[in-house]
């Protein structure tokens, strides 16, 4: 009865098997295992058990997208009018089930830092204030800065109901000292001798050496040392491997659910929101749910907001234009040109590698500065929408009042030696006016008041003086060839490679494009080098010029510039080839070292003295120009007012405007539902 299997029979059997395997593979798409989350399960039941509300609005994919009703009912539903949907800056979460942000990188803007966590203090760059979170007030240092006492806010509870106390802070520090896998391990080992809690609401640190800025490790500026809930972590043998899921924080929201593929994380308002510092300070957050969603392309973001599926979009300049042109309900940060968010606490610009000739020569650095026509430059870089700053801090928050305005007289009188005993006053207080006039000539409409001009375009920049730039170069042996191209003192053609990242909408690339165009016009063979790992090249000194920030970002609140100036400390400089620890320009000076030392020995809460030293530091930076500050970082935010209004726009800047910043939680009580 047996027969030999023919070739055709075998092929038939093979086809049947392949079909089966294919179907099985398709089935695998849907077999992603549910992630057991006690919190999300509980809340999901609550949602499903509120039939009246649930049936009103559809799902997270809101009207008018056609969602099959059966799907909407079964899959976790969010009443749209109670839900705020915002874009996640850092993209898809790689490890959605791991929320232990003390270890490595954990996409903290997925809601961890901006909704669920509460730091001791936060900076608010829109108001220039430092906000007390878990701390009740400023830290008090001993006169020699070897100890400090931090008062803690009373009545705060973690989102699982456990009271927050000083024991949590002590536990956090001691755990960091014990485990080298935690991000802050080295810092605390280097700095902390002992940490104690004399009572439930006071923490005392004894430091190993004087450090007047020790507390800033707890000051949240898109990252800080966050406090661990002791009652959760102490049950874990290894806090480095612990996934800390669900996240337990003192913020006003707690985890609802998340996508195992990392595209979204949903948060729900705590029932006891009044036990979070946010609730205590600002009242009840308005959105019941907040979903933070990652988008892999800008077009999808625009489409999502046009169909009211995304309340907060963050786009490129062109993306924002496209959105505003098509949407009847979207708005930008500023209601008129330049539309952009212009108060981010970063100064963009040009960074020189001062360890590499000819950029080790301050005359060359100044020549390259004076070869820039800032009107053309900002037009190329950001369509004239940047706010200029002539010094190494951005024009925002406290800095115009504390630094840029008081430095105006000095800047006007500041001169450089251009040879033959002649000097040249480099400052141009009319530069912002020229930028505004150029923007207006291109059809942009905006208020014509000095206040608006100062807020939108800044207080001044440097002159466009190519003839003076030429004299500075000639003074140092540079020459032009027959075609007008600049030659180095050794007679070789001068080529500048301007390094930036590969995302050409980022500000390093925008500055690169503008600077290269300006320097080519001046006769230098400059080119943009867009390199993915440009950070590594800069850190080891293998570059000419880059689009990195020309100075370390300031805190964005308070007058203290220690964070900016200290990166120029000569102690952090490393030889080319080794990763430097300070700023990548590798510039330092004895004068700057003395200023940093002076600032280090000054109480950061002594505003008058701090500003005085800060001004001295900025003057030293301008004199040496190790990097050229151009315009403050600008962001392109699109807010949909279909479901939510009262956004912190420029006309009502009650809080910083970004939803990825930790302070996002502080503006949730001020949002107003439209009832749509």
């Amino acid at each position, binding site marked *: 009865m047996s027969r030999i299997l023919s*070739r055709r029979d075998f092929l038939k059997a093979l086809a049947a098997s392949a079909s089966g395997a294919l179907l099985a593979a398709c089935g695998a798409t849907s077999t992603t295992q549910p992630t057991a989350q006690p919190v999300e399960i509980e809340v999901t039941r609550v949602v499903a058990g509120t039939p009246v509300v649930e049936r009103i609005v559809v799902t997270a994919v809101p009207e008018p997208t056609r969602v099959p009703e059966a799907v909407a009912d079964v899959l976790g539903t969010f009443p749209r009018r109670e839900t705020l949907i915002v874009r996640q800056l850092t993209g898809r979460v790689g490890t959605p089930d791991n929320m232990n942000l003390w270890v490595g990188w954990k996409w903290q803007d997925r809601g961890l830092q901006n909704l669920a966590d509460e730091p001791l203090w936060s900076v608010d760059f829109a108001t220039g204030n430092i906000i007390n979170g878990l701390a009740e007030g400023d830290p008090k240092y001993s006169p020699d800065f070897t100890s400090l006492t931090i008062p803690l806010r009373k009545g705060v509870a973690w989102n699982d109901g456990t009271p927050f106390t000083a024991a949590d802070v002590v536990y956090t520090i001691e755990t960091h000292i014990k485990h080298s896998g935690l991000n802050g391990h080295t810092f605390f080992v280097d700095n902390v001798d002992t940490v104690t809690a004399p009572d439930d609401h006071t923490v005392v640190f004894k430091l190993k050496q004087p450090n007047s800025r020790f507390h800033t490790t707890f000051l949240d500026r898109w990252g800080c040392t966050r406090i661990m809930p002791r009652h959760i972590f102490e049950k874990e043998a290894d806090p480095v491997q612990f996934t800390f899921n669900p996240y337990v924080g003192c913020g006003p929201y707690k985890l609802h659910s998340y996508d195992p593929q990392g595209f979204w994380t949903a948060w729900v308002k705590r029932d006891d929101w009044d036990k979070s510092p946010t609730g205590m300070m600002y009242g009840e957050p308005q959105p019941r749910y907040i*979903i933070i969603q990652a988008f892999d392309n800008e077009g999808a973001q625009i489409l999502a907001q046009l169909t009211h599926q995304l309340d907060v979009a963050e786009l490129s300049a062109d993306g924002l234009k496209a959105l505003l042109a098509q949407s009847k309900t979207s708005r930008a940060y500023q209601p008129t040109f330049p539309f952009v968010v212009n108060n981010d606490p970063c100064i963009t610009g040009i960074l020189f590698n001062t360890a590499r000739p000819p950029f080790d020569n301050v005359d060359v650095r100044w020549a390259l500065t004076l070869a820039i026509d800032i009107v053309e430059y900002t037009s190329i870089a950001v369509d004239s929408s940047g706010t200029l700053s002539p010094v190494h801090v951005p024009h925002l928050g406290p800095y115009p009042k504390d630094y840029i305005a008081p430095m105006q007289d000095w800047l006007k009188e500041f001169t450089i030696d251009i040879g033959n005993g002649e000097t040249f006053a480099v400052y141009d207080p009319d530069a912002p006016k020229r930028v505004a006039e150029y923007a207006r000539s291109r059809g942009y409409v905006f208020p014509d008041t000095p206040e608006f001009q100062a807020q939108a375009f800044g207080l001044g920049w440097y002159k466009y003086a190519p003839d003076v730039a030429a004299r500075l170069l000639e003074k140092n042996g540079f020459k032009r060839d027959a075609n007008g191209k600049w030659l180095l003192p050794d007679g070789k053609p001068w080529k500048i490679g301007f390094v930036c990242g590969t995302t050409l909408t980022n500000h390093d690339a925008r500055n690169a494009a503008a600077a290269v165009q300006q320097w080519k016009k001046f006769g230098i063979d400059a080119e943009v080098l867009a390199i993915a790992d440009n950070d590594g090249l800069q850190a080891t000194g293998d570059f000419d010029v880059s689009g990195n920030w020309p100075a370390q970002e300031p805190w964005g609140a308070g007058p203290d510039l220690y964070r900016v100036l200290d990166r120029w400390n000569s102690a952090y400089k490393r030889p080319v080839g080794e990763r430097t620890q300070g700023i990548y320009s590798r510039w330092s000076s004895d004068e700057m070292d003395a200023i940093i030392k002076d600032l280090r020995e000054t109480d950061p809460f002594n505003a008058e003295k701090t500003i005085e030293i800060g001004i001295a530091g900025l003057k030293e930076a301008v004199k040496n120009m190790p990097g050229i500050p151009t315009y403050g970082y600008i962001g392109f935010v699109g807010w949909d007012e279909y479901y939510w209004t009262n956004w912190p726009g420029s006309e009502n800047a009650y809080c910083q405007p970004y939803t990825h910043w930790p302070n996002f939680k502080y503006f949730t009580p001020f949002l107003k539902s439209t009832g749509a």
Partner: protein
Amino acid sequence: MAFLKRYLIPRLIQYVLVVWLGITVVFLIPRLTPNDPVMAMIGMIRARGSTLEPGSMDGIIADLTEMYGLQGSWLDQYWAFWGRLFRGDFGVSFFQFPARVSDLIANAMPWTLGLLLTTTAISWVVGNIIGGLAGYYTRKGWSRTLDAIAMVVRPLPYYIFAFALLLLLAGFMRWFPITGGASLGAIPSFTWAYIKDVLWHAFLPALSLVVLGGAVNFQIMKLLVQNVNAESFVQYAKLGGVTEGRIVRKYVIRNALLPQITGLALSLGQIFSGALITEIVYGYPGLGMLLYNSIVRADYNLIMGITIFSIVGITTAILIVDLAYPLFDPRVRYY
């Protein structure tokens, strides 16, 4: 025995050598690039505005180097890597520390397999059947129309075509979701509602791949059939009175299909690299984005983990096709 000695054993040795060589090259290449996983992590944290105290930087670098297991020479790391691999352990992801590489791949793999196996199979079957018929009946109106459509569709850059579909069917018509592998709030479960939701989200990515992939198969198959159709054995069959249907099915398409089978095997092997542009345009989960991010962030272990699947997938596919070829083409014999 002759088959074993003359063909199978040497072929298996070659297979093992290719896999070893491929894995070794993938081990070396990331280490030869200027990317460094420790610096990538520090750079990422710095770029996002977090404070890393300059004075603590040396300590942080030392801690991360130890934590990632990057101490020692490349040779030490190479031996440690093979030791782990033989135990089925790809190690931990550097950038997504302490997540295990195998977990990250296992999370993304079903999405990639589900989408690409299905679309590769559909575009191959449909493209070859229609292309085969169009190649035989070249003078028919429908054949010319399909050929014209394929001529227009095939040269379109995939990104443009995929985004146009998204704009039209998700943005303008609003029939499909704009992004994601499932709806916001959808918790994975083996329920019909969830499966429907996943299929609804997969439709546009799949459509884009099937249309472009199908057009390619259509055009290749059409040309192959036209060539076979001109062969003397086909003319002889026609003169001999063999029915047209039999000529098409048994004589023409079957013979033209042989190179397409090799193409299918290679396509299936390449599935493990994912579909990066599809994932970006449609915000769809999968291995493509995981691999891209691992390369950008110098996540050596993750690069190795994903590419090992790809290397093994492609070499195995070629091996299987080689071994199975006599089944499809009786003229081929290894003994």
